[in-house]
């Protein structure tokens, strides 16, 4: 017997080599890429701010870690 789960904010775990661009293309295909990247970054400040803030910085061009949770929609009301 498996009980159903309530819907929660949709997220993904990165694939190897993922960047904002690749996630935008895969997860938000109907949105212009620059807009999609901007949306992803605003929904994932825990990752985006890592590069901007310096603390926890990984690579200047790609702050996404292989273990990160990446939200692909805004917070639910």
């Amino acid at each position, binding site marked *: 017997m*498996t*009980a159903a*789960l*309530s819907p*929660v*904010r949709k*997220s993904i*775990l*990165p*694939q*190897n080599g993922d960047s904002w661009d690749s996630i935008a293309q895969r997860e938000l295909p109907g949105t212009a890429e620059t807009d999609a990247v901007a949306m992803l970054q605003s929904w994932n400040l*825990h990752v985006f701010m890592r590069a901007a*803030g*310096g*603390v*926890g*910085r*990984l690579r200047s061009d790609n702050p996404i*870690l*292989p*273990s990160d*949770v990446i*939200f692909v929609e805004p*917070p639910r009301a």
Partner: protein
Amino acid sequence: MYDLVIRNGRVVDGSGMPAFNADIAVQDGRITRIGRVAEAGRREIDATAKVVAPGFIDPHTHFDAQLLWDGYAKPALSHGVTTVVAGNCSLSLAPLKAEHRMKLVGMFNQIEEMPLKAFKEGVVWDWESFPEYLARIQKGLAINVGQLVGHSVLRLWVMGEAAMERTANAQEISAMQQLLRECLDAGAIGLSTSYVDMDETLKPVPSRYADAGEVDALASVLSDYGRVLQIVPEFYDPDLTIARLDQLAELSIKYAIPTTFSPLFVSADNIEAVERVMARVDEQFARGARVWPQVQTRPIDISFSFAVPSLLFIRLPGWYNVMRFGTQDEIIEAFSNPESRAKLVAEASSQMALWSFLRLRHVASEANQKYVGKTLAEIGEMRGVSALDAMIDLSVEEKLDAHFIAESMGHNQDEQVGSLLRHPRVHIGASDGGAHILSFSTYGDTGYLFGHFVRDRGLLTLEESVKKVTSDTAAIWGIPDRGLLQKGLVADIVVFDPAAINRGAEVYVQDVPGDGSRYIRDAHGVDTVIVGGGIAWSAAEGYTSDARGAIVPPALTVPAERIAA
């Protein structure tokens, strides 16, 4: 004649069933009789008006280093804790190659706030493999230890420096699986990983470079042994916490393993968020997953001085960088130079409510004694400056030996915390024993549970609280033969006065190797602590030489050639 008889106690046996009056006899380290015991014991304890319970089990500690110089995990044992789980949050001291020792010390220093000098002066590095480390701590062990394998350490062993740069390839994952098997064979209680921690250079710890496939592969090994996966999620955000617990739940169901995440705090500003997390926990348990949130009993207090880095400043990069990387002179210069001071003040000024609320707890100079015990708001008023400036000025005047405390910062809503602690799918834990030694005392959480939540507030019953920190913990972690008072089980027992048990005041002591200091709390109301049938501590005798601590669970097969003589 029995080895030990405990007479006339009120037995709370850890099952959650009502307390009852009985004697307990112990022979050869095990409980041999519960009832009326006519025969005498070589040692007898009069437990009249006292509770006799299974020894408490603390599932979230970082005693890995302390156990190398203190097999009692002082003062945890004196609080009635007879078993600790070490190696949480992706960090264990084994398996560890010699060339990675200082890297790991740096991580322990950064994440768990453990002093570098203690490692340098308190640790003889004579192990590399996991069995060697267990053999090392087993000498003189008075408390039982469940030892997790740290995921960051596994990666370091297999990948070297690349562990801090990239995902693992198939060969490396296979090597990590094999290494984990060797650790589990030797008696590891599970695997720990972290999604939030940073190393001493403020880069993510190695476990954060692992992709989901790597964690899945390691969980498959845990499945072969039925062992636990512990994680630290992004606990500051409920959506992230829920995403992580969903990830854990999938692994738990796929591999039929228990999982646990810590910490989960509840404060006035996140009650709804915690309700959402707990609703998800309930749903995942209903699916058949085991995703145990760990909740600590004590409110959050944080002490600090600018002599050592404090995680209280982690969200103020300018301050944290100065604390983390500056020498004493450089920190004093940063506070004294008008330009750098102005930058720091500007960065911290948005949190003036926090600085005002801080209290000065210790200074060395006579001139500033008059401020001890006052808030920075009060001190600022006396000096005609802001609370923030008062903190900086005092630190400079005291050459950084001014100690401040932020008391009861969160996790302090009794009704909400009590409700969580009582929840059947909440695991009481997250003490962090042995870590953060200059930020707060991690000892006395069980005294606070029984003194505050059970006796003073009546938010939990004695029986359910004992069950929570004994048989529940043993069941979650697969610790055999302990956690209950039952005939045939190992005699890990605590005798305490339910009218007096509590945690003492937080005190500053200098008992860490390398002239180090820490905050601790003494135990109140604990009478006797028995480990493996031997009295390890009593209020009358203090710590004894009867050290019968064990590694739990016991090793399956221990390759003899890997164990140090």
